[in-house]
């Protein structure tokens, strides 16, 4: 197993329509260790998506670099200067599965074909890829929906397909950008538990973005809190509420533990403090 490393990363977006350039991220340094469930929490505009896009390899940092194990995701590893660096930068790859908030499924394919799409891209034969996709569909509770068109599914079921699809490639880590952000409260709680089960089952590294404090505390084995302008990590907390849940299977009990409530107040205090200090929600 290999860790994800982020070193001295900053991202500067050029100004739109001649506006001022935006420092979306500045001085980001942290690792994700094998088996960790890292949650990034922060108001809109503090650079969470930018950070995830860097990890996925969709964008390049203005400074710094990211590596996963031995391979470079983005930016130039300084230690490797002198080598043919271009060859070493992988960009996006199937070792990192991505789950988006919405709009990412392919409406012309049914549930099973969507889940098997990554394997199809790699040229895996039809029967094998369908068998493997079916396994992960079972994991997310969609074993009875193989032939449904995805555009007829509810939002929660669509996200289940998205999670299964990302898992079918057997990536080292999952990157989830507010995957539950568009769901109703009940579905959201069901999928929180499902994701923790997937994590327990697959032992994958997780990087999960949310702006719900409760969700963050419930899911994270490590919580990072970000603040805007320039986007940076201001706090980090190791947490165990997810492990407690996976033992007692009672989400409401976990979320009403005095420790949970105290932590929630503390984190809310931090976020509101940021706001008072000029950060602010959009």
């Amino acid at each position: 197993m290999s860790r994800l490393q982020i070193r001295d990363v900053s991202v500067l977006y050029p100004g739109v329509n001649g506006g001022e350039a935006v420092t979306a991220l500045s001085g980001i340094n942290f690792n994700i260790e094998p088996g960790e469930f890292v949650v990034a929490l922060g108001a809109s505009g503090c650079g969470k998506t930018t950070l995830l896009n860097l990890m996925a390899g969709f964008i390049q940092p203005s400074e710094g670099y990211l590596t996963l194990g031995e391979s470079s995701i983005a930016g130039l590893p300084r230690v490797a200067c002198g080598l043919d660096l271009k060859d070493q930068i992988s960009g996006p790859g199937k070792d990192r599965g991505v789950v988006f908030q919405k709009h990412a499924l392919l409406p012309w394919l049914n549930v099973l074909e969507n889940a098997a799409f990554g394997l199809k891209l790699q040229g895996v034969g039809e029967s094998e890829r369908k068998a493997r996709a079916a396994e992960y569909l079972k994991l997310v509770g969609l074993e009875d929906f193989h032939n449904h068109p995805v555009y007829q599914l509810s939002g929660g079921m669509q996200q289940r397909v998205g999670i299964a699809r990302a898992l079918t490639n057997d990536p080292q880590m999952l990157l989830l950008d507010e995957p539950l952000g568009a769901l109703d409260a009940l579905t959201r709680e069901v999928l929180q538990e499902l994701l923790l089960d997937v994590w327990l089952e697959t032992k994958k590294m997780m990087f999960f973005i949310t702006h719900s404090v409760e969700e963050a505390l419930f899911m994270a084995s490590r919580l990072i809190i970000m603040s805007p302008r320039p986007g940076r990590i201001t706090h980090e907390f190791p947490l165990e509420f997810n492990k407690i849940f996976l033992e007692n299977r009672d989400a409401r009990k976990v979320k009403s533990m005095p420790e949970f409530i105290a932590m929630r107040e503390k984190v809310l205090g931090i976020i509101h403090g940021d706001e008072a200090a000029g950060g602010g929600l959009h």
Partner: protein
Amino acid sequence: MNQTTAATTPVNAKVSINPVATPSILKRCLSVFAAGPVKPGESYGAPGQGKSLAISLFTTALLIGLWYIATYFQWVKPLFLPSPGAVVMRFWEVATEGFANATLLEHTGWSMMRVFSAFLLALVTAVPIGIFMGVNRIARGIFDPIIEFYRPLPPLAYLPLVIIWLGIGEVSKIVLIYLAIFAPMALSARAGVKSVAMEQIHAAYSMGASRWQVIRQIILINALPEILTGMRIGIGFGWTTLVAAEMVAAQAGLGFMVLNAAEFLVTDIVIMGIIVIGIIAYLFDMLMRYLEKKLVPWKGR
């Protein structure tokens, strides 16, 4: 209906039944035009929901009826507006005996050959070029000014040039129609390429897709609904340009037939030709809509 009801009803009941029966029958008749079953949220929802087929049929029948009455009572001279009967008779006459040295089938055949050749030619050129413009900035740079410049020009404006360059044969006619179809089809294909959600592209890359796979398996399929819309719009432009294309040195064709008839003031053939062109174009549009439903059922979802 009312009379029979009244006749078989006791005298004292007559008064109470008739006033009730009349509006209910009227209501039942009018209910054909109703919007159909109410959907939740309709009254404060998007305006214009509900069925419209019955209204369309009614309007069509009304127009034909007015046409019939206007000619029957000679409100307009037959030279300006021949009767529906005369037009139908002309239809039969041209279909069997022909007009201007060709039967209706031949006229129709020539016109369809021209429009559909141009359409197929546009399909195999405009769609790839439009897609190429969407995925490649150099292609966009090359084709954008050309298309945007000639697109708003009326075909009649560049018809002389096309004839000077390509002569008065079949080629110049097909090229004229082709040019009219090309622009909307290329621009739709380009818009289709642009309409793809960034999440879909990113998702594909993170599943290990190559650039070519992203273009072929995500972008192209995503563009299909708009490409089909472009085909619909394109063929419409094709029929619009037909008459212009058949203005010079045609021996047969619906546009030629209409122009020729107009020269000799045979108004019934002019109207008949217009109706035939309209019906063919309409049937093809229905076929395209059917294809759309079959090929891209996810459109708009």
